[in-house]
Every structure is written in C-alpha cells, then in structure tokens.
C-alpha cells in the first residue's frame, strides 16, 4: 500500500525488475540460499511483499521459462534498494544454472506474484509446518508473525539431516520427545522454538513431520488450541497429512501450494488445483465434492486447506 511518505509517482504494481546476485551460498546438500539485490526502477522500488508471495526468476539462457520461488525473506535498504531471499534445491536445468551464479552476476525477475498467508483476527498462535523446499516461506512468515505479536512454533522436516535447509545452533534438537526447542537459527533469532523430524531419524524425531505435530497437539491446552492457525508448505502428501491433522484438532489451516507453471501471471492456465466449490462447479470428486480448477499463481499459492481437493 502507498504511504504518505512515498512520492506519488511510486508504483506498487508488480512488474519486471533487474536483479543482482548479492550472495548465493550452499545451505546443505543440493540446497542454496540466494540473495538478490533490486534497485528501484523509474516507477520506484520493488513493491511491498507478504509471506506466501513468490517471484518468477529468469534462468536464461539455461531455460526458456522462468522458475517460481517463494520468498524466504526481504530486507529494505537505503535509497529504495530491496534484497530478496530465496532458498532453492537443485532439481533441474534451471536450478543448476542458478547454483553457479556468483555475487555480482545479474538476472531479472517478475514480481511480486500470488496471494499471501492470512493472519485471522482472534488467532495468535502460528504453527509453521515446512517440509523440504516448503521451508523458505516459513522463514518469511515467522518474521511477519513476530511483527504481529503472534506466538509461533516451527515444525521442520526432511528426509535426512543433510537435506534440511536450516542453520542449526543454540539448543540440540530433541530426539525422542519431539519437544520444540531453540535449535534452528532462522526461527530461534525470533524466539521461535522448532521441532525437527527426519524420515531416517538422522536428526530430531524419527518419522514424518506430522509425528512431531501430533505430539504437540497432545500437549496443547484447549485455550491455546483456540488460538492456533496451522501454516504449511511442502510436498503434497505432507500438506494433505497436515491438513487432516488440523481438521482432526479443529484448527484453521492454510496451505501454500507448489505447481509447475509457465507464466505465474494467470494466463498460461497450467498451474491448476482443484478447489472445493459448491456454486458453479466444473466437476465432482468420487466422494461427491464439487470442485472447480483454480490457478496456483493468481488464486493462490495460499489456500484454506479445507477447500483444497488433495
């Protein structure tokens, strides 16, 4: 939103920006943290952003199409310069190209794109559930929750320790209890405790991310449960499991979806997701739920979990 202190010519319209690589560092096996510096264009600085939003990053000449990445963080510097942070895993041609970028290299991006996580009134305890490359938007959301004076607990999971794109520090992650502790710097710097799970038990609780979440729900007072919103991003089966758990415990759940997309702007119609819609449906599921295709890029990427047909 425009504020009175900004000149009138400043445009908050999403658009294309040139970006310079500030840093591109390895976080863990196959994962990198990329910080991009963006100077204002003739219409002003890079627009305001919120957790859940993403950018379409140019990987030319390696790829024809851009690659979408959720924002993991943002810093506003002097003279309208903005630094955006993304965390990515090397999975294909585009991300392989990104991994060789060095400080000073340039690319461009479209953004900011997509909708955002909502902080509903009356709620004040956020459970941040991030699996694999679903973690980065949780870092950004954690900052927003703190600014909004919410309490928060992070649930962090991956297949193995070396695929966890986080910085361990402070406390040791609890192994058998799954008890959240100040063991991950991205969250502990905001006084947010984290419960760590790995499928192979190489760090934290052995099992799926929902195992730690389930234990946490068991310790939660009724009063606290009323304050909870579960925010999640990660692989589809994990989102589905987290959504089911939220439903079982009667708490709101917002999921941030990932889907292959060409444009990110609502035109190519490729990033479809089935969303429950009783009015004007395009189809019905086997169990009788009417649905309509919505676009991850412009209707999402954040949806209320109870509306998503998993």
């Amino acid at each position, binding site marked *: 939103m425009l504020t009175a202190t900004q000149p009138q010519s400043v445009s908050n*319209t*999403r*658009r*294309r920006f040139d970006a310079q690589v500030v840093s591109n560092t390895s976080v863990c096996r196959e994962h990198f943290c990329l910080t991009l510096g963006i100077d204002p264009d003739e219409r002003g600085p890079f627009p305001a952003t919120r957790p859940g939003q993403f950018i379409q990053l*140019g990987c*030319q000449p390696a*790829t*024809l*199409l*851009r690659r979408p990445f959720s924002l993991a963080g943002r810093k506003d510097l002097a003279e309208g310069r903005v630094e955006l942070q993304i965390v990515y895993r090397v999975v294909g041609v585009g991300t392989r190209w990104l991994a060789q970028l060095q400080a000073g290299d340039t690319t461009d991006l*479209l953004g900011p794109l997509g909708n955002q996580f909502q902080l509903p009134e009356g709620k004040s305890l956020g459970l941040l559930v991030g699996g694999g490359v679903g973690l980065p938007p949780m870092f950004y959301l954690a900052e927003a929750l703190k600014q909004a004076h919410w309490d928060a607990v992070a649930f962090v999971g991956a297949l193995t320790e070396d695929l966890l794109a986080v910085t361990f520090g402070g406390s040791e992650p609890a192994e058998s209890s799954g008890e959240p502790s100040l063991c991950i710097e991205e969250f502990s710097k905001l006084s947010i405790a984290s419960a760590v799970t790995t499928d192979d038990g190489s760090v934290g609780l052995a099992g799926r991310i929902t195992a730690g979440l389930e234990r946490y729900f068991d310790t939660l007072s009724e009063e606290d449960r009323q304050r909870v919103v579960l925010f999640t991003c990660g692989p589809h089966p994990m989102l589905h499991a987290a959504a089911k758990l939220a439903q079982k415990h009667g708490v709101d759940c917002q999921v941030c979806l990932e*889907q*292959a*997309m*060409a*444009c990110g*702007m*609502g*035109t*190519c*119609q*490729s*990033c*479809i*997701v089935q969303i429950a819609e009783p009015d004007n449906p*395009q*189809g019905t599921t086997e169990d009788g739920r009417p649905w*309509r*295709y919505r676009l991850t890029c412009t209707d999402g990427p954040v949806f209320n979990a109870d509306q998503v047909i998993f």
Partner: protein
Amino acid sequence: MTKSVSQESPCLAVNLAGLKLANPMMTASGTCGYAYEYQDFVDLHQLGAFVTKSISRDPRPGNPATRIVETPSGMMNAIGLANVGLDVFLAEKLDQLKQMRQGGPALIVNVAGHSIDDYVAVAGRIAQEQEVDAVELNVSCPNVGDGLTFGTDPKLLKELIGYVRKAMRADCKLIVQLSPNVGDITLTAGAAIDGGANILSMINTYTALAIDIKTRKPRIANGTGGLSGPAIRPLAVYLVSRVYREVAQKAGVPIIGMGGIRTWSDAAEFLIAGATGLAVGTSLFADPATPVNIMAGLESYLAEQDMSSITELIGTLEMPVR
C-alpha cells in the same frame, strides 16, 4: 531515384487483407488470457492486434494437471482449451476487450469447436460484435463426428470455412490458423483460401511427446502435448515461406507468422519468409513485454536496411534456384 533519408522511424504499419494495424505485433492465442491479464507488465495498447484465447460454445474446464512441461528451447502444453465459454465471454470479457481496442490494437477473437455447428455458432455470434475485427479459427481440434482433425483434412477444412465465412459479418475478417501436423501444408493452406479465409495464421503447435523415464508415462497428463517456443522456429519459418511462395502470395492472402518468436531478428526472419503479421506466444510467459521490445529492434533493423516501411521487407527471401 534515391530513397529519402529521413530521421523518422521506419513505418511499422501493415495491412492484413484490409485490416489496418499500427504494427505487425500480436499476441498468440492462448498465451495472453482474455484481455488485461498482462497489463501490469506491458502496455497492451502498443500491440498491433490482441488475440484472445480460444473460445468454445460451452465452458471447458480443460485437462487435468500436469498441463505443461519445458523441453529444450521449447515447451509442451495440453491445456485442453480451458475457457469460460461463449456466453460468459460475451457477458464478462468482451467489454474489457472493446475498451482495449479503443486504445489501439485490433481485436481478434480465437474460436475453437468440435463440430461445424460449434464453429458456426460461436464465430457467427462473435462476429456480430462490430468491435471484433477478425475471428481466428483454431482448427486443430478433432471433429466429434468422425474424429478427423479439421485442420489436417483439406476437404473438411474447406467445408468448415465455407460455412463459417457465410455465418460471419462480411467486414469481419476470417483468419484460419494452420496446423503443422500435416504432410503437405500447402494443401490445407489452399483449402482454407478456397473456403474463404481472408488471412492465414501459421503455425499452431507441433504434436509432441515427453516421457518420464522413471514411471514410463507421458510427462503431460493428456499424453501428448503441443510443442511451441524457439525449438519450432526454423520449422515455422520454413512453412511460412512455402505457403507464401506456393499458395498465399498469388491468392493475395496475407500470413500471420508465429512459432518461437522471441527477438526482433526472429521476427525479421518471418517477415522475410512472407509473413505480414507476427504473433508472439510462448515468450510472453517469460516476458509479456516481448512484442513491444521486438518493435524497437525491428525499427532499428529496417533503418539499417534503408527501408522506410516494414512492408518493403515482407517476402523478400532469396531462395537458391534449383
């Protein structure tokens, strides 16, 4: 006589069978939504023409995911003609398009169907709108009757176009978008012209297959998809040059060239091959400003070539004599 060396930019205006455009740049159907989806990223009013996505008689949800996959220098899609259908298009989308047209670009509505009746009903109705300058037929759909694809069968294509042309307002141009998935494209091009097409647009996507070697299944849920992007550009340029030289030029039917256009030099190739209009598709996904950026490049190139108008470049290809 020497050409006047003027400081003015070369003229980009083109005439497509009487349809006068400020410049040859258009959006390719299906890559630019219904109207203003890209307005944050580019001033659409600078285009010569805006082409909508395909409109069908009934709303279509489209195919299940996965709908796209990127391939070397290209992408494959099987969106399944997802669109709001004729009624909602007329009620909710057309006003925006009319508004856009007032700002400059000609308005072209793309129409898809699965029977001659479908095409006649939709094209006929849309052509009733005075602001619609042209209807473009997507004929790369199978006919529900006999399963033949309209765009690959010259006889069926000619019949279809005859009916559609008669159903349309006389001064609304009929563009037929040719499919490259044929043995001899000059036959379908000729059939389209015989049927009454005013303009040809070419080419639609190439039918293609990408396989996930782990699952041994297609990477696109539909199975096959249409290949677009720079990967098909030399193929498209070749087909444009063939149709221009063998069929379209002598019939006086202009061609809208498309297929992997990303830069001004790509655009210049199509013009030299014989295209009068130029549509940008896949590259819009990476940068919606592509057609506008191309215009600046074309102006410089024409000036370098000492041409005062883009029309001087069209069809100037010198093929070796065999």
